[in-house]
């Protein structure tokens, strides 16, 4: 039963994508969108239950374990939230002419094709399939980033497809090199020799020298896709130019899928040449990302670019957690993946609504949001507080755990830099958001009431964000602990 589910899961969004091509009607398209996403989430939950009781499952090139399950749940959950948000967002985007109604069906089809490729990256056991699906996400999402069709969108899309394709080809090279190491260690038989679980069995016997080279290539490759600095150049452009639901998917899920790829190779490298080597590489990239993002966050005026640079910072924090390592560090990194995914999607949703209301992405124009849109303004403020790392929200918990892991391992320099940057970003972000939410709005601002669909999608995410800040449910805690054991 659960083995069948493994290959049904990527088929669900693929079929949804094909169904989209059958109609032009916006209502029907939105209905298919929400239903397809709901089915995906329901099947994911069934699979989660099976894995929790019966351990990892595998079929052919696909495999699910507790580690993959965390990311799969994130994909499925955010896809549903995005679908619900899209219903209302689309109505407005059509009204102001941001989206064209004759192009709608291909937009929806691409979104679900994008989701399908992401589901495959999460489920892939075969490292070759992982790469193919990862390049598939680039192709589908590049078209979506340029979807508005204006010059800036196309510029961002071009930069994205060129930078990530060349980046990810480094990832392929690293995969080939590690495959060669596995072949030299005596792993035989076609596609099986690229299987992560098969390589893990022989990992301690792999040649450390070649695995080191392979891991660095993979780190640069998948790191490009994850948005780690200094390979992050595509990220702020793509996140700011894409349609808002796509921004949420890029930031909330796609860069997390690339992190999963890095974690898979990290476990191989840790077994082959000791945990210190991959941890050191992750620490360096993590610190660079946190440091590079800070000045751009402070000086930013475009709200979506601000959130894009924030993703660079938070991916850096995940890399730091993985780099500090140990039980606490890995646990913190995985928790941060989920927390940031949910919070960042919420932030993009709320920012998207504010942008639509004010007709500008410039934070100096957006003023007094709370008085024209009380609920949307509150949600934007909550998301920003959480992103800044204020208790009791979820990101505070995972950042604290990352810090504790660093202290436990005695990485004092890294911790000092990390703390300094987090404090600066905290101040910068609160300044930006404070001036957007409070104050007097300009007279010309639209005061039309807020609509239910975007709010419902946002409240769903906000509820989880607050819940994970207050307490981590036992079942989710167990999942994280089992996944931590896989990585460690």
């Amino acid at each position: 039963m659960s083995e069948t589910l493994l290959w049904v899961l990527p088929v669900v969004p693929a079929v949804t994508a094909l169904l989209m091509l059958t109609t032009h009607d916006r209502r029907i398209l939105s209905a298919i969108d929400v239903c397809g996403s709901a089915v995906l989430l329901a099947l994911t939950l069934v699979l989660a239950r099976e894995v929790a009781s019966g351990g990892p499952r595998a079929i052919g090139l696909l495999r699910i374990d507790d580690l993959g399950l965390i990311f799969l749940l994130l994909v499925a959950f955010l896809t549903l939230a995005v679908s619900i948000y899209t219903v209302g967002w689309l109505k407005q985007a059509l009204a102001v002419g941001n989206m064209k109604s004759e192009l709608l069906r291909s937009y929806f089809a691409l979104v679900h094709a994008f989701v399908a490729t992401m589901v495959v990256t999460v489920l892939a056991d075969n490292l070759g399939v992982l790469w193919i699906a990862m390049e598939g996400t680039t192709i589908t999402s590049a078209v979506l980033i340029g979807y508005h069709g204006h010059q800036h969108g196309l510029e961002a899309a071009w930069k994205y497809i060129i930078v990530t394709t060349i980046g990810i080809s480094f990832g392929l090279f690293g995969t080939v090199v590690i495959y060669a190491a596995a072949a030299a260690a005596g792993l035989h038989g076609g596609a099986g020799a690229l299987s992560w679980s098969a390589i893990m069995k022989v990992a301690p016997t792999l040649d450390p020298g070649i695995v080191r080279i392979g891991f660095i290539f993979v780190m640069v490759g998948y790191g490009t896709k994850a948005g780690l600095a200094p390979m992050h150049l595509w990220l702020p452009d793509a996140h700011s130019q894409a349609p808002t639901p796509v921004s949420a998917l890029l930031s909330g899920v796609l860069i997390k899928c690339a992190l999963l790829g890095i974690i898979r190779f990290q476990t191989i490298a840790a077994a082959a040449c000791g945990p210190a080597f991959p941890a050191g590489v992750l620490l360096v990239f993590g610190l660079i990302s946190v440091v590079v993002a800070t000045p751009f966050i402070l000086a930013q005026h475009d709200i979506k670019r601000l959130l894009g640079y924030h993703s660079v910072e938070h991916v850096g924090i995940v890399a730091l957690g993985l780099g500090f390592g140990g039980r606490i560090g890995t646990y913190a990194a995985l928790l941060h993946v989920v927390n940031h995914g949910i919070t960042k999607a919420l932030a993009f949703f709320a920012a998207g609504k504010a942008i639509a209301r004010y007709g500008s992405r410039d934070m100096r124009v957006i003023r007094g949001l709370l008085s024209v849109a009380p609920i949307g303004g509150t949600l934007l403020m909550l998301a920003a507080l959480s992103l800044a790392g204020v208790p009791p929200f979820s990101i505070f918990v995972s950042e604290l755990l990352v810090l504790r892991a660093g202290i436990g391992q005695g990485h004092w320099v890294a911790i000092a830099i990390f703390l300094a940057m987090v404090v600066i970003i905290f101040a910068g972000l609160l300044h930006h958001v404070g001036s957007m939410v409070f104050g007097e709005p300009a007279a010309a601002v639209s005061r039309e009431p807020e609509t239910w669909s975007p709010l419902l999608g946002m409240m769903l995410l906000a509820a989880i964000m607050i819940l994970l800040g207050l307490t981590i449910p036992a079942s989710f805690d167990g999942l994280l602990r089992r996944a931590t054991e896989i990585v460690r």
Partner: protein
Amino acid sequence: MSAETVHTIIDDLGALLLFTMILIVAAGQIYRAIYAVAAQSLFIAVAGAVLATATGNVDLWVIAGITLIVKAMVLPWVLHHVVQRMNIRREVEPVIPVGATLALAVLIVVVSFQLSASLGSVRQAITGNALPVGIALTLTGVLAMATQKTALTQMVGLFASENGIFFTAMSVTQGMPLIIEIGVILDVILAALVMAIMVLRVRSTVDADIADLDRLRG
């Protein structure tokens, strides 16, 4: 064929690949760069055929055939088509002098060979000098993309870079699994098509090279 002969042939092909790479980096006109990358793909296909004969691995014949058709014929044709549609007469515009780029390319080749000379046990897993040649091609492809700022030269650099990966992948003793190689090539074609569409779209709407757009900053 003896193992020695195969090593020699692969090493000779590797030298030819590096030579075509130099032509791409130094190309003054976009057409020359396209022909050079087509020639490079042709050599990769020959390498595949040689390795297929030597190892008796049928999959490698398929891969060599696909490489010949897709990378040596279809992709260069797409690039050629785009160049004609764009009707560009202008030369390739290097960001830094070609001499400096060539010096960097030489440096990359030397470092790649140094790097893989330190890896003893890989010699058994990868035929001849395919690993250092592959690393050098991949990095020089990135160099070509970084130093020439037109959309088409960036695409050429990308394909050259991927050629390096294919060369190394073929030379891993067992060869890459066929299904994976086919998936990878499929991705390459799709990416090339999407890029070509973007280039033409920008050309037709704002009459500019998409790689020249630089409004998004900060």
